[in-house]
């Protein structure tokens, strides 16, 4: 049976296409979170997603992340919810969204007259906007227009031998079609940086890749957090290199053509490493406080969807972009099947080969791009988190020329 690869994307002014047409409701400080949630809640089934930044103090990274997320191809319209006295550059964000051709509206709780009035006004705006968005212009979308991110969470001894290499094979198939694929977790790549560097398209990029992992190692060591733990050896992993190769196998075997930082869009198709460890001295705590912080960064780089490898069994999804769960452990899969999209554990049960599961992951990417809901989407998962960080711009050797 041949599976159709025909896709239709929601057309955006910048030429990019979305695989979803969501409305984002964004709180610009924690004080506006409840009001924003109350506005979005009744529309949960109709593709209205809640995102936001909780901090009151300004942060260039968070403002850039919000700008990239609000103008993400999967987002068709945005409602900003502000308390009124937070430091977030609301007008700048609103202007950037308007410039992108999207419907946008701001509600300032202190000006509209409090919680109840703001919720009413917000719901009215959403109602009108949803009606306006249908029908929405679409255009045929090709595989090379897709941007796919990958992350692992709740890993166990099976992750590195089933789900991760299967995602790597799916990445190879996608990249062969010209798609963009992004992997990350530089803190989990310690010990295989030289192997990774051999896959760089230029010598300068190879040096940058090694430096990126070095930065991560130093950052985590300063926080007193090593990568290889006793529990890893108890599960059968023997060395740092082995553990890192397990995580690294998600990247497949294509050439690495560049490094991105959170919010950077890839200028070409191909494989990219997302450097999510902050620059400069350690401040604001751990680089990413949980899996969803990493997912939000992959989405801010334009990822249409995320391939999430899990052994112990994560249940999360995400706001803005669908998450495909590739379950590494067959026992976990049978226990939590409702939350999973692909059972990579079949490799251990001898009912599928690595190549077959890799193909299945690839096909599930296409199906998701064609509109099929992933398990976490169907279950209503829309996790989102954004914290304080600091980044410097990319170095000159990090990106290929478009």
């Amino acid at each position, binding site marked *: 049976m041949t599976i159709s690869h025909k896709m239709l994307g929601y057309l955006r002014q910048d030429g990019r296409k979305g695989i979803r047409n969501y409305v984002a409701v964004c709180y610009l400080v924690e004080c506006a979170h409840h009001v924003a949630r109350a506005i979005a809640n009744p529309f949960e089934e109709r593709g209205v997603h809640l995102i936001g930044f909780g901090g009151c103090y300004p942060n260039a990274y968070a403002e850039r992340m919000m700008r990239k997320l609000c103008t993400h191809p999967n987002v068709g319209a945005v409602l900003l919810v502000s308390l009124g006295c937070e430091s977030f550059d609301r007008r700048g964000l609103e202007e950037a969204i308007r410039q992108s051709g999207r419907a946008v509206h701001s509600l300032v709780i202190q000006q509209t007259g409090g919680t109840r009035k703001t919720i009413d006004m917000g719901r009215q705006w959403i109602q009108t906007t949803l009606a306006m968005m249908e029908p929405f212009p679409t255009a045929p979308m090709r595989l090379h227009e897709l941007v796919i991110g990958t992350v692992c969470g709740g890993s166990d001894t099976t992750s590195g031998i089933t789900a991760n290499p299967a995602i790597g094979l799916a990445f190879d198939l996608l990249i062969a079609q010209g798609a963009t694929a992004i992997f990350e977790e530089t803190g989990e790549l310690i010990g295989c940086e030289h192997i990774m560097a051999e896959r760089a398209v230029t010598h300068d990029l190879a040096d940058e890749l090694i430096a990126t992992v070095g930065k991560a190692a130093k950052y985590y060591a*300063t926080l007193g957090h090593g990568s290889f733990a006793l529990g890893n050896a108890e599960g059968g992993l023997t060395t740092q290199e082995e553990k890192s190769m397990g995580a690294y196998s998600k990247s497949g075997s294509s050439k690495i053509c560049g490094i991105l930082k959170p919010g950077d869009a890839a200028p070409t198709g191909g494989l990219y490493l997302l450097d999510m460890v902050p620059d400069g001295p350690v401040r604001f705590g751990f680089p990413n406080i949980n899996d969803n912080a990493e997912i939000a960064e992959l989405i801010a780089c334009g990822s249409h969807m995320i391939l999430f490898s899990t052994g112990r069994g994560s249940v999360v999804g995400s706001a803005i972009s669908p998450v495909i769960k590739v379950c590494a452990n067959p026992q976990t899969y049978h226990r939590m099947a409702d939350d999973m999209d692909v059972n990579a554990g079949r490799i251990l049960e001898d009912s599928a080969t690595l190549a077959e599961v890799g193909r299945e992951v690839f096909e599930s990417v296409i199906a998701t791009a064609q509109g099929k809901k992933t398990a976490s989407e169907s279950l209503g998962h829309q996790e989102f988190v954004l914290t304080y960080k600091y980044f410097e711009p990319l170095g000159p050797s990090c990106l290929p020329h478009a």
Partner: protein
Amino acid sequence: MEFSSSDARLLFVDPKDNVCTATRAIESGTPVQLSGHTVFISETVPFGFKIAACKIALDDKVVKYGVPIGSATRDIAIGEMVHVHNMKSDYLPTYTLDPRDRP
């Protein structure tokens, strides 16, 4: 040289690997097929642990994912479990933590 096994209990991630992974616990004395030979597992190998697919000499690289993940600290026989008792990491950080960065 490429190693392989038709045995579902043994998983090779890459054809260049000289170790494979036990996809379920394998009792001591169990015969398995490795690279065309019948080999008896010398000690009980838990699920997820590694088994030598060929003889690995002292200081030889242990290869998984098609790349070295460390080296043998003694001679390892085919069918023997490979773990912290007979291999070690080769990883030498190219950077060290600046003492001033310590918390």
